[in-house]
């Protein structure tokens, strides 16, 4: 007789996966952004490349997410955003995000990270205004959601 397992909380999953030091992660990401800035020079190009890299990660990350978290299908966008913020971010980055700034239609929201491991020790110089340093996260979410969208 099979047992139906309910969805697991972000904390539980994070405690059960193998983890690495966040600083290695932070510094590696910094090295990537630095390489992109040197190669591409244009801030917009770097933003696009970061988004693309995030997309590539997202389409593969979603498999692991679904396998480990056991979430059921989300019924609407609100639930999707909550799951991303509470389970997704916790499971991979070890931090919880909050969802705010819903618009009137419920189609647009902001996910806010208080504590972002990607940006530890980072300060942007004036030459990089307009750089979305964490744009890889946008790409990851975009890639992941595209894989599970009903269309």
């Amino acid at each position, binding site marked *: 007789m099979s047992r139906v397992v309910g969805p697991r909380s972000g904390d539980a999953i*994070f405690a059960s*996966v*193998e*983890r*690495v*030091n*966040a*600083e*290695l*992660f932070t*510094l*590696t*990401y*910094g*090295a*990537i952004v*630095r*390489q*992109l800035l040197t*190669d591409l020079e244009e801030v917009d190009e770097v933003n696009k*490349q970061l988004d693309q*890299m995030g997309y*590539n*990660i997202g389409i*593969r*990350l979603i498999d*692991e997410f679904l396998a480990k978290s056991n979430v059921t299908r989300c019924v609407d966008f609100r639930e999707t955003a909550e799951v991303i913020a509470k389970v997704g971010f916790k*499971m*991979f*980055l*070890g931090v919880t995000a909050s969802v705010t700034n819903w618009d009137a239609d419920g189609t647009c929201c902001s996910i806010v990270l208080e504590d*972002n*491991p990607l*940006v*530890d*020790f*980072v*300060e*942007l110089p004036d030459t*990089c*205004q*307009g*750089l*979305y*340093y*964490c*744009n*890889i996260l946008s790409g990851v979410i975009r890639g992941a959601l595209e894989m599970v969208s009903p269309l």
Partner: protein
Amino acid sequence: MIGVGKMKQYSNVLDKPLNKGKQEVSLSAFAFLFSELVQYNQTQVDNIAELERRLEDAGYAVGARVLELLCHREKGNRKETRLLGILSFVHSTVWKVLFGKVADSLEKGTEHEDEYMISEKELLVNRFISIPKDMGTFNCGAFVAGIVRGVLDSAGFPAVVTAHFVPMEGQQRPRTTILIKFAEEVLRREARLGG
């Protein structure tokens, strides 16, 4: 997101308190990120040597920063001046902080005076990577070699650092060895200091 608008939370990032370094992210997050790093660099180069060099350069920047961070946090701002001191710093402290364990072994080269080897059964960065046959001796451990070179260079011990696969009998996956070859001046200084 950071960079959007000119608003900053702290006037200077150096004023922000340094965290204890206990924060963690999942291994898969790091593995995904590292794979993107390698894939991006593959599109930018024509040959294996260039790819290794680019990975090493990326690691070099990480190593320089790791040295500063660890010297301040772990050792109270005291820096190593002796060869064995800096090697055991890399082998134990750096490895422990970055990879969660000390390196498997640290050996002195038998053929040359200036060579040392740090070995690891399975480098963290290589865990989810398999090298296709046509890439020959390419090793993503070049990133780690770059980290080690960054640490040594910033500490005042210039060296050439490379990563090699060493096949082991009875094991399916080869061991990885980081080969460190110190520059002349380091050995001369060491001799002068009475090493």
